[in-house]
């Protein structure tokens, strides 16, 4: 997706680094969503409710931050951090609901996920209206001044690299997502926790016969997954923009599922896929600045909506199995009956 370059004002290297930096940043919710999916599905629970978990977390995280800031007069940064915490908590709570439905009550997991998606849209839309747009509500019928977004953390030394340094000038959740990719990889493939979680997702009965508590393992990993999705949700309202809008996750939860599949249920694979999706989005964002660089025969790409479609089209192709043949965990989506 490299833009052809004429003799323009910015150097090609600068354009590319700036695109890379944006790519890494906008891939954050996708990466976290994909990690969320990996934890759930590696343990054998399909989670299509990631979209809803993110949306809910985006709202509740934001709400918590505003409460801290305006009602309790806490400084912006601690408010935002409390917001992140609440985002993760609400993601975890949505996941708990999904776990109860799909593990304890063995409800079809697609239905459980759909319930969460619908629930999140409903709750956030309703509360958003009630709290901010109703006269006499706690915020007096208007959206209060938000405590801003999480500050950039220039990674020492790396940011000082000429030109390329720009890539290492990122916000905390973006950095956290990358660290979590590495941590998840180790947890899933190198620890007893990961071995058990994969066992439960592949052949729960076999896990049961060696004394592993299948239900507990599934619950725990689904909740971890929910918290990761929650962190991904926090990106929208606490890191990207300082506001909430209904439906603002805009299908990112589903795209992250595609990234998870494309990455063959591995953290690094999913991250790479998220970056591909992120690149398409970054291109769309940056296109307005570089439109004139696109040669005429690619004129259609000058339309940012066309470029913006790319992730969705890619998602559909992946989900329908046209691109890439991957193998999900053998017991993915199947409730365990003794």
């Amino acid at each position, binding site marked *: 997706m490299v833009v052809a370059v004429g003799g323009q004002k910015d150097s090609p290297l600068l354009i590319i680094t700036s695109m890379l930096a944006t790519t890494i940043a906008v891939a954050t919710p996708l990466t976290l969503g994909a990690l969320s999916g990996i934890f759930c599905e590696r343990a054998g629970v399909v989670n299509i409710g990631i979209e809803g978990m993110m949306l809910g977390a985006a709202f509740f995280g934001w709400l918590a931050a505003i409460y801290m800031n305006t009602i309790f007069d806490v400084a912006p940064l601690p408010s935002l951090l409390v917001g992140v915490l609440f985002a993760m908590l609400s993601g975890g709570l949505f996941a708990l609901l999904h776990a109860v439905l799909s593990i304890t009550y063995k409800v079809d997991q697609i239905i459980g996920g759909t319930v969460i998606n619908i629930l999140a849209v409903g709750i956030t839309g309703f509360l958003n209206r009630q709290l901010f747009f109703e006269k006499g509500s706690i915020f007096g019928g208007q959206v209060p001044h938000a405590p801003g977004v999480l500050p950039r953390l220039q990674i020492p030394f790396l940011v000082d690299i000429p030109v390329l340094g720009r890539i290492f000038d990122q916000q905390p959740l973006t950095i956290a997502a990358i660290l979590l990719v590495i941590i998840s990889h180790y947890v899933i493939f190198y*620890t007893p926790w990961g071995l058990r979680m*994969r*066992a439960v997702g592949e*052949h729960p009965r076999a896990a049961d016969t*060696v*004394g592993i508590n299948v239900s507990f393992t599934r619950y725990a990993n689904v909740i971890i997954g929910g918290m990761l999705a929650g962190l991904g949700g926090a990106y929208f309202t606490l890191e990207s923009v300082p506001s909430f809008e209904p439906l603002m996750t805009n299908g990112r939860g589903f795209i992250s599922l595609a990234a998870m599949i494309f990455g063959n249920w591995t953290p690094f694979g999913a991250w790479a896929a998220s970056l591909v999706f992120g690149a398409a989005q970054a291109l769309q964002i940056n296109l307005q600045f570089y439109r004139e660089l696109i040669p005429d025969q690619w004129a259609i790409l000058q339309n940012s909506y066309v470029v913006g479609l790319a992730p969705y089209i890619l998602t559909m192709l992946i989900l329908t199995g046209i691109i890439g043949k991957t193998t999900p965990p*053998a017991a993915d989506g199947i409730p365990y009956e003794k």
Partner: protein
Amino acid sequence: MTETNIILQAKGITKRFPGVLANDKVDFSLKKGEIHGLLGENGAGKTTLMNILYGLYNQDEGEMLVNGKTVQIDNPKDSISLGIGMVHQHFMLIPVFTVAENIMLGYESTKHGILDRKGVSAKVKELSHQFGLDVDPEALVGQLSVGIQQRVEIVKTLYREAEILILDEPTAVLTPQEADELFAIMRGLTERGVSIIFITHKLKEVLGIAERITVMRSGRVVGTVIPAEVDEAKLASLMVGREVILKVKKGKAKAKGEVLKVENLHVLDDRGLETVHNVSFKVREGEILGIAGVQGNGQTQLAEALTGLRKTESGRVTLAGKDITGKSPRPIIETGLAHIPEDRHRHGLVLGYSVADNMVLCTYYLPPFAKHLVLNQDAVDANAQTLIEEYDVRTPSPFVPTAKLSGGNQQKVIVARELSRDVKLLIASQPTRGLDVGSIEYIHKEIVQMRDRGLGVLLISAELDEIMALSDRIAVMYSGKIVTTIDAKDATREQLGLWMAGSQSN
């Protein structure tokens, strides 16, 4: 023997499933260092009893003692810590894990929180050396043969320092050679003080290796005997509750025109290796052609290719005069094929479906089972009722998921479905695997009857006894080729065994 010699004891174990009394006040005891055979019809409750001892199920009544002390076994964790290990009838291994990962699962050792794969591999190697169970700890389990997978299961229990080993039908899936190796391993284990419960349907085996034999029937223990005091016939009648004719009665075959013709067939396996190599043979109406061979010599792929489950590379297959090469299963079935597949879980049954539904899997879209676009449930149920009675399938009702049936009864569901249809050819792969003597007698009789009605039968079996008892002609398959075809009355065990082992001498 004094009481102190008893390492494991079950007293009055009762277990009910909806509609079934699976264990009815069962008493059972295991002496230290003995091999204790457990026999019983399909559905007699053997696996259930073992699952209770292992903590997978909890008994409704009764108590268990280990080393004379009453113990509470709620889950496998409890039983593992009491030194009980179990190798299940259907293996409990994760195909995408390595041998070492499978072995350490649930009992992991770590270094700074990270799995100690090296350490475990070393321990596995040491154990396999010590007990003569050769396994490669780094191999992926999914790529191992069943015989090796079974070793992995045994090493898994030894890794957990099991002193009581439960083997649920370990020989059902083994070649005779592998079974002999297993027996050597079992004897080695008992010498080191391990006590073994050995479940099997093969009377010869249990008479050969067990110190005592307990027989179960319909959830109850009907007796415990010593091999020296009984013979096969006595055991069989004890098991089934009536005389069993262990020898198949059959007249001379009246073979007519050919029903199946296979010409120069080449088939690849999953890895793309040619496992069926230029095979040609014919099956005539009214005869049984047995294909003998040690498992893994291409029989599986041959059967899959003939039934449309696997692509053929080249060659021609003609069924009842129609070219069926490369056709999908449905047109082949409609041409007149009945198939008892080797792997009942993968190709024979939809485990989550009811018994009744499984019994119409090949015919559900035809009348009387289909009325226009909907199923005629009454016809489906009536069909199930008839077959369940006729084939003596032990199930609480036609509507339970097939997964809930005992292994042998699952097999009977397939046999009933396939033998009850109007067909021209039967391909039976290991048709009596996991079946009790009574059922084997019944199915053998049924196969002979089909032959006498003028059907062609292709019998693929690793059981030499079965091949010799049923076949009119015997083809021996070795390394993907048919090495010889002879008349059954000229066949001797020894000669067949040599051919099966790849010996060229004639």
